[in-house]
């Protein structure tokens, strides 16, 4: 089934307010309803998305290797990475929370980076198989990404709560900032990627 597209009809969808516009011959058209500059596709989408994903992939390493929390008690000091925090939940009788944190902190960011890379490569080469599956994949990525921020909030509240003076205090570690950056970068990457590119080249081929 071939459906007409806005682009093929010479029309542009305003990404801000959702109005379909006929830009006519204007070189730099603006949406008549909200004033946004109209672009048929997000500007420089592939390059920007690649840059953000590469940065996220690099930061994923320190995010997982550096401690995200340090615990100071009278007798000792211990440093926790994301993974050792998960193991702690597993060993203290909360396997459900261990699985939750593993899913949102380790699995989702990694899966998100890999899936976005796949989407980019497939879009660049105009792969015409699995179009609907890739479209669905992107919508899922877009939807679940924000939940990766969970660990940042757990760290924030744990640090705020465990303030028992000399008895025990918990401090955030440098891994937390790296991890937060990974989440933010992948969220921006999902935003700069234009899912219409999944379809564009496959169209031209057929």
């Amino acid at each position, binding site marked *: 089934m071939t459906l007409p597209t806005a682009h093929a009809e010479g029309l542009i969808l305003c990404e801000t307010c959702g109005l379909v516009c006929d830009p006519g011959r204007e070189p730099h058209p603006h*949406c008549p309803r909200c004033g946004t500059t109209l672009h048929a596709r997000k500007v420089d989408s592939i390059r920007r998305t690649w840059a953000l994903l590469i940065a996220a992939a690099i930061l994923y390493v320190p995010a997982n290797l550096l401690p995200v929390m340090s615990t100071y008690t009278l007798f000792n000091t211990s440093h926790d990475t994301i993974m050792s925090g998960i193991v702690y939940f597993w060993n203290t009788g909360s396997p459900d929370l261990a699985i939750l944190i593993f899913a949102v902190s380790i699995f989702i960011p990694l899966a998100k980076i890999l899936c976005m890379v796949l989407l980019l490569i497939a879009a660049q080469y105009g792969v015409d198989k699995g179009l609907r599956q890739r479209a669905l994949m992107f919508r899922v990525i877009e939807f679940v990404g924000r939940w990766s921020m969970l660990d940042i909030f757990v760290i924030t509240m*744990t640090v705020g*709560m465990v303030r028992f003076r000399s008895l025990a205090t918990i401090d*955030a570690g440098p891994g937390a900032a790296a991890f937060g950056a990974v989440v933010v970068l992948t969220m921006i990457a999902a935003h700069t990627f234009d899912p*219409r590119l999944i379809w564009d080249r496959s169209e031209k081929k057929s």
Partner: protein
Amino acid sequence: MPKPLPALIACPHCDALYRRPTLGRGERARCARCGAPLYREAIKLDPDHLLALVIAASITLVIANLSPVVRLSASGITHSASLIGSIGVLWDEGRVLTAMLAFATTIAFPVAELGAFTALLILIRREPGSPHVAALLRGIQAVRPWGMTEVFMLGIVVALVKISHTAQVIPGVALFAFAALTILLTLIISYDLKALWALRPLPEAEP
């Protein structure tokens, strides 16, 4: 000036072009090509009811941010922790980036969204064509993905489970305020902003 074609809709996910369907209450249109949800008949909530919801959420947000989430005691030492206080601790310990990220997603962006929404709903009744309406709507759309109250709510629960092994935990006012805020924000966000854009008058077609 480009010509507006309000009778058409295009799928933001795959660019398929359709004639705007007339939908019944609660119905939603899906894109035949990519399967993305396209268009939903806006929940019939008039802007005044929405405004009441936004003001309720704003008050809840202030309470949630400033009052204690929990009181804790261990070995005779008792203290309470609030969101703003916890972010302050991160900041004082030199974890500036983490503190800023937590502040932005749990306080700054939700406050900005609710503030802009209040102004918008008051303004849009008097002057839907005003450029301020467009600026406010754009602002709300820009900050919305970065407000993470519902994720934070889950974060509190996880942190509490963790702490309850080592300290006694007494729930504070903000714990309930955050739960209420999560529900209120979910209701507010389910309102499709396209319905507010549609209230803006379109320029007359040039002859």
